[in-house]
């Protein structure tokens, strides 16, 4: 069932015929007149082409069929390292293959270049900017992010925002993102989901097992999505290791032999 707006066919979630048959005029329904008109129970469509995320299940639920351009996308994580970059890798690689630069602002840990190559990203098309290492009085950590968004020459921006960020700062970044032709991913702490934000797309990510990501769509231009999505990330584990991971502690601990770690005894 494709909830996207189609100007030719009537939308899939039209009201039932019996109730309002007598009231409905013989003309076309208003939402099929123009792409900018839509009903609240339909998924919005962005004016520009959205960037496909590489996950069909996710694209079906995102307005426009992918990551929005010229707007912030907020991703909320419990902690770093749950597969967030594997989620974004396909769209970042597509941006780089178009010859545009990807910028990362304040990554939470050191970035490993061989891992980037394995994810499909090119280190020649990537810049890492640290804003918090040199703090002057009155320094603005978000100034660099705003400059990159406003310049409009950067292909994609991935930024780690400081915790407890005020909503007017996020609104300011969203305004700056209007000039940025590409996706702008803002990764924040999980506690930010209770604060209002001007970003049009907000997702909360959780790890749902090895190489699995549970994604809840908190805010989007369209009807709310109640059920979380389960995405299969590009795998790190081999098949055997994955089967081993399915075994939880306690229950079937004896079914699969636990991995022996090689230990050396110091005989000296």
């Amino acid at each position: 069932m494709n909830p996207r707006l189609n100007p030719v066919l009537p939308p899939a979630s039209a009201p039932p015929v019996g109730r309002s048959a007598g009231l409905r005029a013989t003309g076309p329904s208003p939402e099929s007149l123009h792409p900018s008109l839509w009903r609240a129970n339909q998924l919005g469509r962005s004016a520009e082409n959205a960037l496909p995320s590489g996950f069909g299940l996710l694209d079906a639920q995102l307005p426009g069929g992918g990551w929005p351009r010229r707007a912030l996308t907020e991703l909320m994580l419990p902690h770093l390292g749950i597969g967030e970059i594997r989620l974004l890798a396909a769209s970042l690689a597509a941006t780089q293959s178009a010859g545009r630069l990807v910028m990362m602002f304040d990554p939470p840990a050191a970035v490993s270049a061989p891992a980037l190559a394995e994810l499909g990203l090119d280190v020649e098309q990537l810049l890492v900017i640290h804003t918090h290492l040199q703090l002057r009085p009155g320094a603005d950590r978000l100034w660099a992010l705003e400059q990159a968004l406003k310049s409009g020459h950067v292909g994609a921006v991935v930024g780690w925002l400081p915790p407890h960020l005020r909503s007017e700062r996020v609104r300011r970044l969203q305004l700056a993102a209007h000039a940025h032709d590409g996706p702008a991913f803002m990764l924040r702490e999980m506690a930010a989901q209770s604060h209002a934000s001007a970003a049009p797309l907000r997702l909360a990510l959780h790890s749902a097992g090895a190489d699995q990501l549970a994604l809840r769509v908190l805010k989007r231009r369209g009807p709310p999505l109640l059920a979380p999505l389960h995405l299969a990330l590009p795998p790190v584990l081999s098949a055997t290791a994955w089967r081993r991971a399915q075994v939880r502690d306690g229950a079937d601990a004896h079914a699969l032999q636990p991995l022996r770690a090689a230990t050396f005894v110091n005989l000296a």
Partner: protein
Amino acid sequence: MLWVALHLPLLSLESFAATLPPEQAGQPLALMDAHRIVSANAGARALGVEAGMKRATALSLAPQLLLGQADARRDADALTSVAHAALAFTPMVNLSPPAGVLLEVQASLRYFGGLAPLLARLQVTLAPLNHRLRCVIAPTAQGAALLSRVQDRLHCADRPALQQALDAAPTWLLGAGQVHWDTLQGMGLRTLGELRRLPRAGLARRFGEALLEELDCALGDRPDPREPVILPSVFCSQIELFARADTTEQVLHGAQILLARLVAWLSAQHAFVCRFSLLMKHEARWGHSHAVTVLDIALAEPSRDPAHMLVLLRERLAALQLPAPTLELALESDDISHRPPPNAELFPTPQSEHAGLTRLIERLQARLGREQVQRLVPVADHRPEWATLAQPAEPLWLRQREAKVAGGERPRTLPGQSLAITRPLWLLPQPQPLQERQSRPLLDGQVLQVLAGPERIEAGWWDGGLAERDYFIAQTAEGALVWLYRARLPLPVAGGSKGWYLQGRFA
């Protein structure tokens, strides 16, 4: 020959106003020389201040009057920069002191598409220097210079028209006429036309040959060779601030005038600046002599854009701690290059995007520091902490990248094929030792389930950073994947942990 004469009637007042801080620029101003007022701006004249008054009289009429000294050198600097800006239009530019610039434009008319477009572009080029201009066009240099002092926007197409205009001009325009002005007035000779009708021998005997020579040059009867202005090979200009500058904004306001002069000098040679330095002379404090702070700005790409250079100056000044208030500013530059200007097309091209990216990275580096904008370089080393080198983004790398993109070389992509992911993206700066419970590693109090391994990495025996480790992939209780290792030989480890270390997390 077609000469354009530019006269700057308020040159002294404007060059004085350039040294004032921005908030005082609109106040009534007057210039003094030897205890008498020499000139006053419109605001001061409205309050009744006139040239020739004494200082006390002027101050009693207008208490808030700002008085400054007339400085011929400051005026000459301002006039020189106007001449440099005019050099972009014709090589024959002549200074006619005290406040005139002459341009010979007959040879440039065809290139600029006519006299009116040339004059319009001249106005636009001279606008940043902020001077009131009077413009007269005539076939002779002297004639145009004389007429520009009394008239504005006059175009004498040929010699008869020039003669007609000069006939109506007053006699005190001529240098000799000014000297003998009283005598000439007493004789009733008020205009140059009346002078011309008198017998030449008598005029020469009465007032000297100089009067007749000047008149002949003006009318075109006498050759009048002029020396063109020579452009200095090195740019050096200074401005003495009227009030000491305590804040960055005041220093930047003064630096803006200097940057406009630098741009005029560059346009004259059709060149771009690669590096310039701003020297700030501070007032003497506590027995120290005048300290000079030098601020060197090197541009990643040669540029002629005053707004961009001002932005860079602002960022660098904001990070600088000045020891004392600034009294004098000087701008120097000797590093220029002749490169084609960037194209200004409607739709973004790879060249314009590259130029925009270079400026963005320049701005970021100016504010955050050069080391904070990094690119990653993979190093052929098995040890994970040595496998990535973070280097500052250099303009050379940007240019190479731009050349590759423009040449159609697309970066390596993996559309359908997926490489096996064996390395974690996030590496901890220092490996974190982990506790152990029942021979299983603990992270944040929860037992990690080891899933894959061991992967043995032994490297670094050649440079003293020996690493002999067995790496494992483990899963936390929530399902996140982490990368651990155990040191292969139980060497005595500081901290006395059992040997499990957390090195990275899979993102």
